[in-house]
């Protein structure tokens, strides 16, 4: 068995914005990765690993990349890595997005939710799906990876909080507005928790049924939670879910997710 543990070499670290970096790692052997999966990386000097969505990977080159925003001490330290450094990674972790063929999929991204959605859009396009991307950012300076998204998308719509690029407003409003035009079979979303709550309100009634005007679509969201292990043993990254069957339980974001059917997600107050 190949353990999901790798000692990887940093082969590139570039800044995408003043506070977002892209790191590329070289592996010796390469696992099978599914779009939407994440890695959990040990940052020297910290006891808990830091989870990041996989943004790019190449089985041929045995490389994997992730993009990270500076948040606290861990990401600050990670940004100090140098090409040639070795880092200890657990990967690939989590379930990833559904792999479907020849359908219409809307991608909805808020801020740094962008990263795991990039290989997802690529994979979907390669599998013959029509991909409509709705990408939300705070402003023009934060709007990154646009060309890469456009390369995999039938249409790409951008929204910013201040209107400095694309439409002024929220992607969650845009997807509702454009829904009839594109009639997506699936919506795949990643972003801040507030965005998921908005999607839930927009697409579902108070008794949690899909509103009739959206019939026929399924919405999947990739969630974030503070985690300890990343592979399900600690039960630290809980998410309340309620299944169609009535089964009501605490799922683990790291291994039952991070991708969940939005219908099943319960946002506790």
């Amino acid at each position, binding site marked *: 068995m190949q353990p999901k543990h790798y000692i990887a070499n940093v082969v590139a670290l570039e800044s995408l914005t003043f506070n977002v970096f892209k790191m590329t790692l070289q592996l010796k052997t390469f696992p099978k990765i599914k779009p939407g999966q994440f890695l959990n990386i040990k940052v020297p000097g910290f*006891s808990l690993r830091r989870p990041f969505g996989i943004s790019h990977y190449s089985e041929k080159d045995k490389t994997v990349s992730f993009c990270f925003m500076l948040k606290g001490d861990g990401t600050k330290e990670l940004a100090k890595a140098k090409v040639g450094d070795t880092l200890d990674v657990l990967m690939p972790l989590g379930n990833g997005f559904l792999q479907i063929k020849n359908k219409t999929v809307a991608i909805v991204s808020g801020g740094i939710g962008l990263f795991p959605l990039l290989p997802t859009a690529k994979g979907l396009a390669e599998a013959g799906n029509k991909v409509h991307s709705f990408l939300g950012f705070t402003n023009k300076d934060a709007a990154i990876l646009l060309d890469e998204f456009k390369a995999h998308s039938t249409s790409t719509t951008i929204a910013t909080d201040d209107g400095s690029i694309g439409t002024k407003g929220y992607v969650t409003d845009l997807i509702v507005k454009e829904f009839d035009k594109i009639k997506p079979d699936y919506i795949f979303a990643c972003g801040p928790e507030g965005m998921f709550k908005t999607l839930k309100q927009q697409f579902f009634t108070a008794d949690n049924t899909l509103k009739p005007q959206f019939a026929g679509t399924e919405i999947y969201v990739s969630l974030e939670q503070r985690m*300890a292990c990343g*592979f399900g*043993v*600690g039960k*630290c990254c*809980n998410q*309340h879910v309620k299944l169609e069957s009535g089964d009501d339980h605490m799922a683990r974001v790291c291994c039952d997710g991070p991708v969940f059917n939005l219908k099943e997600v319960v946002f*506790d107050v």
Partner: protein
Amino acid sequence: MSKLLQRKVFGLEFKNPIIPASGCFNMGKEVDANFFPIKIFGGLMSKGITRANRLGNPAPRVAETASGMLNAVGLQNPGVDHFIKHDLPFLKKQGSPVFANACGNTVDDYLYVVGQLEKTNIDAIELNVSCPNVKMGLSFGTDAGAVEEVVSAVRKITKKPLVVKLTPNVTSPALIAKAAENAGADGISLINTLGGMAVDIKTRKPVLGNRAGGLSGAAVKPVALKMVHDVYKAVKIPVIGLGGIQNYKDIIEFMLVGATLVQVGTTLMTDPMSIPQMIADLENWCKENKIKNLDEIVGGLL
């Protein structure tokens, strides 16, 4: 596999002294599927098990600390009957002795959990007395009388080896250990997590959803070593040592202060592959130091 690391304790055979700590291994399937065959552990341990299904605490349940972590999972588990049906067969299949970590909020709860386990082929019980006692408001394990009461009650209904897992959040773990020994325990394990909290200065709120939690990992090792030593000197029954073990040297330290077996928790979560490494390193160390049986070092502190 060589027999150098073999242990015989509680009438059970362990191929090495390493057992996963409860709650850091779930019920074994994840480590087995993603990292290494779990039969390499000397013994196996369940997550804390209660009478009924428990949903646990609100998020966030974990916070990082200097050289450690805080958790407030709140004993999320599917309940003893589900465990027996869905998890125990997998653990038993591995061939290493299997412990169940039994929890409760009343003596009656413990009796139900252990009573159900008694009917199975599980090898041993680890009684987690760090759970809050609804009658006292504090954990059972903070009061020698309450420990004696629950251990005596459980002792009457089980013939299986009964290990009592102590909380470090007391003035004298040795005193509590003696109470457990008097009540018929076959062994003592310690330490459970140390009470602690983390604060977010931006929100001015505790980081953990439960406000406070338990500290584990490298940060607690010195505390654990002293407590294991104090308990080792106070009781005649075997002691299982844990708290912050990261490598084979830590295991040797715990054995020198009196541990017959050890458990690894936080490190198993943050660095799962360190387990096969510890086993190999420990064996090499024994060879280099001409140790034929680990009993030679247990309690060997000068």
